[in-house]
């Protein structure tokens, strides 16, 4: 579904991504792990068009993503749940969800989507009239995920949903994501620093270090790998 080949990108002249190739098949849950500054967020920003690549190719289905203007990419079925949540603070929870549903498919499926989102993340239903800026960090993260789901995406990209959250809240959000995936069969691409949890639930994983993919494989291969065990799992 998403095929990234030899992607290079950077901020100004400083390269952040260096020939990254990643493949996400329909229905897969793919995790990208790695330390701070490895280029994980830059990769997502390049997929969403906020960052211009200096080389490489991104295919989404049959579409050459680099030829699609950034604001059009959501309409192809890519939902980006950004790092640091980035909800719209002066809009209510409900209005934030409506913004998620700006795409044609989101508008078409609005009724059933909103029902499912409220079922998965009931706190959003409770707070639907509240301004998003007044929510707690965990609630904002749930709103950001709900907003992503509201577009009826083909691919849900999650950029560090656990960032800055209390461990128990992060655990809860992880469980929700796994439930959502089980019930919807949605294709997911996750970037995470909580390597153990990410690799446990994903079908396939990539380890990104200093802008390169240093390792990839299914979750057993990765979790059995000595480097991963030492560097990330603390074993």
């Amino acid at each position: 579904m998403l095929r990234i080949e030899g992607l290079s990108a950077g901020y100004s002249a400083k390269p952040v991504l260096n020939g990254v190739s990643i493949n996400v098949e329909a229905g897969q849950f793919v995790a990208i792990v790695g330390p701070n500054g490895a280029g994980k967020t830059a990769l997502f920003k390049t997929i969403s068009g906020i960052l211009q690549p200096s080389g490489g190719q991104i295919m989404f289905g049959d579409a050459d993503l680099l030829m699609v203007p950034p604001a059009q990419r959501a309409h192809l079925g890519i939902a980006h749940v950004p790092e640091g949540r980035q909800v719209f603070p002066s809009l209510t929870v409900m209005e934030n969800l409506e913004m998620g549903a700006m795409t044609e498919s989101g508008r078409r499926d609005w009724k059933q989507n909103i029902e499912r989102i409220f079922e998965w993340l009931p706190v959003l239903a409770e707070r639907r009239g509240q301004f998003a800026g007044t929510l707690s960090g965990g609630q904002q993260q749930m709103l950001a995920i709900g907003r992503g789901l509201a577009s009826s995406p083909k691919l849900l990209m999650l950029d560090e949903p656990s960032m800055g959250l209390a461990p128990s809240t992060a655990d809860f959000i992880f469980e929700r994501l796994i439930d959502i995936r089980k019930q919807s069969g949605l294709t997911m691409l996750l970037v995470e620093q909580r390597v153990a949890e990410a690799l446990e639930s994903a079908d396939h994983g990539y380890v990104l270090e200093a802008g390169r993919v240093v390792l990839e494989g299914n979750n057993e291969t990765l979790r059995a790998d000595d480097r991963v065990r030492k560097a990330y799992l603390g074993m």
Partner: protein
Amino acid sequence: MEGFLQALAAGLLIGAVYGLMCVGLGLIFGVMRVINFAHGDFMMLGMYVAFYLFTAAGVQAFFGNAVGPFVAILLAGPALAIFGYFVHLTLISHVSGTRTASLEGEGHYAQLILTLGIALILQNGGLIIFGSVLASIRTPLSSSAWELGILSDVSVFINKARGIDAVVSLVIMTLLSLLITRSRIGKSLRAAADNPTAATYMGIDVDRAHRVAFALGCGITAIAGGLLATNYPFHPFVGLEYVIVMYAGVVLGGMGSIIGAFWGGMTIGLVQQMSTLILPTQLQNAAIFVVFLLIIFFRPQGFFGRMVERT
């Protein structure tokens, strides 16, 4: 007593039009954070468009002297909105929106200089085309009044043109707030203002949202300008007199709040008229800024500004 009520009425009437004028800038400066120093001059253009539509384009002949001016004024709105749309497309978009989102100051320095330049072109271009003779949109309503008997011995006179001006302002303000708060396009404008990057992730074309807001802001202020022109004569440099008031109103109301900009403008209108009770008229504008400073001293975020960090 009568003098006080008369000044209060005059303040409320002019305040409603000032409010509408500030709302136009509020969309551009408050919500989209684009500095537009030419906004007063867009308003001046709106006044002349209304003036020529009324006198030369047959609106006067068709609608008469009473209704005609207001028809011409309302038509000036869309005309200036289209003009604003193209100014944004060809000039402003190069120094605002996603193109400058990553720059220090979000392109504000370039916006400042560019829009000052546009202001100079409009002022001096206006001088060449329209001449320096004072113009005004005359209607017989400007020189007649309704008498409101509040008590048996106290009555207040409402200038008919100003009364209708205020009503038109309130109606347009209501329609605009509905558009901004309820409609899909209004919500996407607010989302684009809140967080342009996240709005792009939602599939909102942020630059287009900016353009729509800019056009809307120009159209709204043009209508307010036309309404002012039924009572105040104008000339190609009239924008300078109003642009500072507009910025004061937007800041007073609170950055990012449309309804706040309206109340900011209303406050300025009230202060301006009420100050004449105790101060010589030459000090009207000084009174505005004394009150402005006082309010900002106690409430730096303005009436409706919220102390939240923008993401």
